[in-house]
């Protein structure tokens, strides 16, 4: 055990048991998995991506490239979890990844011996030839050899929540700068949201030893946390990772609600996705320490100095017995003091120029030795050490600001990329702003919070600026160590070395974006947080370019990996999208309906009767029943829009190609709408309820789009028209009643109405009463039969279906679904969705006569273009197989007889096909070049997809009752 006897932020009274690779260990509350592993002397935690080199814990934060583990098991297994950010809990189960058969002995480490092959761009160079080997051999091989953890493949048993937050000030990060800012704004009464990734507040104050107001910094943090908790307008979200900045100062964050529990409590989500809208934001995300690229810098035991400091001070562990330090910054000396205070031996402090105290060695670490670290080499001299802490300088964590379009610039004074101009509404504070000392962090937090308050017109608070201990922040830079022996890594997770950068440069990949993609530098799950800038600096040096000129890559969200489940939230399985049910749904289900998805609606497709084994059998029976008796069909899903006002008629004249202003009250009319480019948009009917009131119908698919279009015409094109419009699709349930017995049935339903042909003829409409409630009756026919549509308020829709069934029982009223509806309309040649496909014109559908020449309407001018009325355009025709019994298929291409089935001979296609009971055979509608003048001609209907080739005769699209006698009957 390497647990220190005292100190740290762990709770020694709360021991926690956990396992790693099946072996049991113990840690304490307040540990991360990484600190608990260190306390248990576990040094080897993973294998690298490409070379399978043994790796240990490098960092103490989210920038960790090495210590990736699979957390939990079974369906809850979560691969690629960073041990450095996993909060320890009792019963935690973790396993190492990317090794076989075991972490200690990995067969794939042979890749390291083959490393000359696995250089940058090796995919492109090595596996090019022969081409067919890629899919069969190379790719499976590479995928098995290189990779990280595996998904369980099982459904996620946990739930994920979503929430929204609005605030005056969002503070990202609860280190000294963030805490100071939140406190300042919170005291002023601003609505403050402060988010912190860690389970503890304090940031660097948890890991470093400082004094604030003469007290240990931890006391100040505790006091601030207590005050924030007491302020009514302040909300503190711990365990919450802010992963993305988006337009208009909105942010995405994920709160790990139950990730620190074995399983979430009942009803508790595992994670919660926050969408945050902030008026002002302070980015106080601190900085990430850089590694130093020397030979063998990836050996387990080589760690970031800041991490060693955290493991000693915060977690009270001794990562090693002899900890050497290789430092470019003053933080190395601070670490040495901390180690000595903890009783840990410091065999050497190495700095390139020898600055430091008397014991410092001037020089560089050029090599490391041991399976896990045993010694380091400095200027040819071996020094025994089981840990080497490297302090390579700091990169401000500015990714979130970059998401909002701010471009980092190189600051020669601190050797780092910084933001000189933060995005509008955002300020940077502390190390994120490149101000590395504690005093500056406190100053920044105070100042930027006051500025935000002033910006928001809120009174500033007067509070004392806490006094802080002196904390000189040194900066240094050393991008590679000359004379290094062995591989010197830049990107640890993706195994990108100093040599790879040089190779990429030699091969011409000289921009940072090209370098990234060629070498995969910074493309791993850590997104190059630790090493990417080092790689860019090496590239700049190799191309003799200044860092400022070379620049850095563009950071995009997410800043940290986020589980897909968090984004999906509750929108999974049945909840993936809303389901809309008509009022008659339950009635349909009771009657044996099979349902089909039509957008979000469920529509009855057909109704299976006992003894029926095939859908076609049911559909044919239903269609036949409508032609010979009476059928009822729920058509509630069609869009319904009421248009009212003195100018309602004028508006409809401009929306439809035909005249609606001449429609008398009590009548309905079929109408066609075009897009402004002249193509058909939608069709439906308009019924005039009063001089200044219409109800129009739309297709089910276009209901929302037509509503939007009507509003566009009212608001944008002709705001001078006094006409209102509102969707009433969901307010009215509507049923089609069709067949020779339709009048008898309707008369039973509406005994007080005169439904004779004289009183209520074809295309009549009326507002009437059904069972003492409002109803609307229309004599419309999609089926070509004597037919009505009756609408009642939706809450009476189910009762209407039952009443119709009851009233029609004696003459066998038959419910029919969308399939039979389709059969009936194909027999009558009525276009529907398959023909109204956005590519057809009124002329194509044989409705050229519906384009009024007496008025303006949407699409008028462009519908008249020669190309849109060209007779050679594919135009609506009927098609029937020459050989009885043969089946034409929708989607089949129409070709002249004898022509080869090639695209150049294509003359159109089949849009709709069905088995017609009245024809007693398969029939189809299609769009055929110059179709109407080719009636009687025979063509081929070829479907390469289904492998069918059927000879068909071109005919009128109206297969049944061409004179329309029945619907007027």
């Amino acid at each position, binding site marked *: 055990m390497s647990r220190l006897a005292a100190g740290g932020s762990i709770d020694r009274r709360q021991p926690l048991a956990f396992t790693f690779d099946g072996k049991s260990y113990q840690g304490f509350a307040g540990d991360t998995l990484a600190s608990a592993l260190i306390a248990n002397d576990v040094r080897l935690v993973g294998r690298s991506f490409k070379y399978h080199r043994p790796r240990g814990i490098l960092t103490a934060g989210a920038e960790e490239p090495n210590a990736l583990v699979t957390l939990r098991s079974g369906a809850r297994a979560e691969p690629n979890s960073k041990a450095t950010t996993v909060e320890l809990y009792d019963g935690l189960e973790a396993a190492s990844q990317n090794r076989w058969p075991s972490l200690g002995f990995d067969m794939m480490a042979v890749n390291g011996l083959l490393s000359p092959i696995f250089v940058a761009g090796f995919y492109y160079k090595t596996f090019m030839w022969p081409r067919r080997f890629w899919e069969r051999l190379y790719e499976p091989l590479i995928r098995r050899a290189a990779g990280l953890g595996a998904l369980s493949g099982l459904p996620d048993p946990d739930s994920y929540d979503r929430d929204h937050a609005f605030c005056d000030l969002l503070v990202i990060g609860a280190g000294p700068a963030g805490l100071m800012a939140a406190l300042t704004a919170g005291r002023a009464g601003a609505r403050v949201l402060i988010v912190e990734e860690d389970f503890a507040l304090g940031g660097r104050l948890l890991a470093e030893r400082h004094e604030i107001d003469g007290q240990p910094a931890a006391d100040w943090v505790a006091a601030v946390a207590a005050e924030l908790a007491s302020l009514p307008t302040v909300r503190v979200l711990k365990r919450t990772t802010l992963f993305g900045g*988006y*337009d*208009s*100062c*909105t942010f995405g964050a994920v709160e790990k609600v139950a990730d620190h529990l074995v399983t979430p409590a009942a009803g508790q989500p595992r994670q919660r996705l926050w*969408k945050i*809208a902030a008026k002002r934001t302070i980015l106080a995300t601190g900085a990430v320490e850089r590694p130093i690229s020397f030979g063998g810098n990836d050996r387990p035991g080589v760690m970031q100095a800041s991490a060693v400091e955290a493991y000693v001070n915060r977690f009270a562990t001794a990562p090693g017995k002899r900890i050497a330090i290789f430092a470019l910054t003053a933080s190395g000396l601070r670490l040495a003091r901390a180690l000595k205070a903890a009783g840990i031996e410091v065999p050497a402090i190495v700095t390139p120029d020898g600055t430091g105290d008397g014991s410092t060695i001037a020089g560089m670490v050029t090599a490391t030795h041991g399976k896990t670290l045993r010694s380091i080499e400095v200027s040819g001299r071996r020094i025994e050490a089981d840990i080497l802490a490297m302090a390579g300088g700091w990169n401000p964590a500015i990714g979130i600001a970059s998401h909002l*379009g701010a471009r980092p610039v190189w600051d020669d004074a601190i050797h780092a990329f910084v933001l000189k101009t933060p995005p*509008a509404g955002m300020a940077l504070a502390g190390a994120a702003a490149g101000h590395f000392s504690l005093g500056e962090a406190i100053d920044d937090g105070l100042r930027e919070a006051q500025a935000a308050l002033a910006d928001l017109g809120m009174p500033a608070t007067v509070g004392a600026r806490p006094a802080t201990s002196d904390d000189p922040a040194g900066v240094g830079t050393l991008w590679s160590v000359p004379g290094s022996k062995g591989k010197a890594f830049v990107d640890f997770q993706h195994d990108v070395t100093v040599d790879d950068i040089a190779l990429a440069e030699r091969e011409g990949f000289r921009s940072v974006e090209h370098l990234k993609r060629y070498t995969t530098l910074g493309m791993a799950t850590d997104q190059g947080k630790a090493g990417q800038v080092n790689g860019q600096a090496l590239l700049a040096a190799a191309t003799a370019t200044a860092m400022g000129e070379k620049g850095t890559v563009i950071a995009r969200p997410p800043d940290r990996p986020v589980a897909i489940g968090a984004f999906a939230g509750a929108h999974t399985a049945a909840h993936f999208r809303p389901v809309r049910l008509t009022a008659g749904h339950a009635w349909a289900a009771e009657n044996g309906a099979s349902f089909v998805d039509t957008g979000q609606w469920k529509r009855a497709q057909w109704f299976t009767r006992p003894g029926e084994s095939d859908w076609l059998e049911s559909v044919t029976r239903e269609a036949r029943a409508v032609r010979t008796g009476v059928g009822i069909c729920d058509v509630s899903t069609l869009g319904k829009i009421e248009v009212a006002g003195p100018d309602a008629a004028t508006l409809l004249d*401009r929306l439809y190609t035909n005249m609606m202003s001449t429609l008398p009250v009590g009548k309905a009319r079929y109408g066609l709408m075009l897009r*402004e*480019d002249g193509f058909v948009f939608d069709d439906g009917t308009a019924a005039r309820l009063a001089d200044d009131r219409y109800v129009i119908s739309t297709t089910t698919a276009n209901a*929302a789009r037509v*509503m*939007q279009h009507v*509003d*566009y015409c*009212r*608001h*944008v*094109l002709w*705001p001078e028209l006094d006409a209102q419009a509102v969707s009433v699709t969901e307010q009215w349930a509507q049923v089609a009643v069709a067949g020779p017995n339709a009048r008898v049935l309707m008369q039973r339903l509406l005994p007080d109405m005169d439904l004779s042909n004289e009183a209520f003829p074809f295309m009549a409409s009326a507002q009437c009463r059904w069972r003492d409630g409002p109803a609307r009756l229309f004599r419309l026919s999609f089926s070509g039969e004597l037919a009505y549509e009756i609408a009642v308020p939706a809450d009476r829709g189910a009762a209407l279906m039952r009443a119709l069934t009851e009233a029609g029982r004696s003459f066998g009223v038959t419910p029919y679904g969308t399939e039979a509806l389709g059969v009936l309309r194909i027999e009558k040649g009525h276009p529907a969705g398959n023909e109204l496909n956005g590519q057809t014109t009124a002329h194509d559908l044989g409705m050229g006569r519906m384009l009024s020449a007496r008025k*303006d*309407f949407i699409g*008028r*001018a*462009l519908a*008249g*273009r020669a190309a849109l009325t060209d007779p050679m355009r594919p135009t609506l025709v009927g098609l029937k197989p020459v050989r009885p019994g043969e089946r034409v298929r929708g989607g089949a291409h129409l070709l002249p007889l004898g022509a080869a089935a090639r695209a150049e001979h294509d003359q159109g296609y089949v849009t709709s096909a069905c088995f017609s009971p009245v024809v007693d055979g398969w029939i189809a509608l299609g769009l055929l070049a110059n179709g109407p003048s080719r009636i009687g001609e025979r063509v081929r209907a070829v479907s390469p997809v289904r492998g069918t080739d059927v000879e068909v005769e071109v005919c009128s699209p109206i297969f049944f009752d061409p004179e329309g006698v029945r619907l007027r009957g």
Partner: protein
Amino acid sequence: MRIPCPYCGERDAHEFVYRGDAAPQRPDGAEANEAAFADYVYPRANVAGAMHEHWYHAQGCRTWIVVERDTRSHAIAGATLAREAKR
């Protein structure tokens, strides 16, 4: 992105449907010829900078509005009701 709807106040962009450039004006239909309509329907400027755009508050008040947005930064300068913008 947040859009300041003149009716509803500032709302998330997900509530809106985007249409595009608000600049093209529909030719006076009665007289306008094919060429005038083709010019209205098809060519669009690829604006880099401030642009007036039509948005529809589909999940809110169902109003068409004109939003002034900078296409480079997505900064939104303001929004007016389309029917008022026309006057």
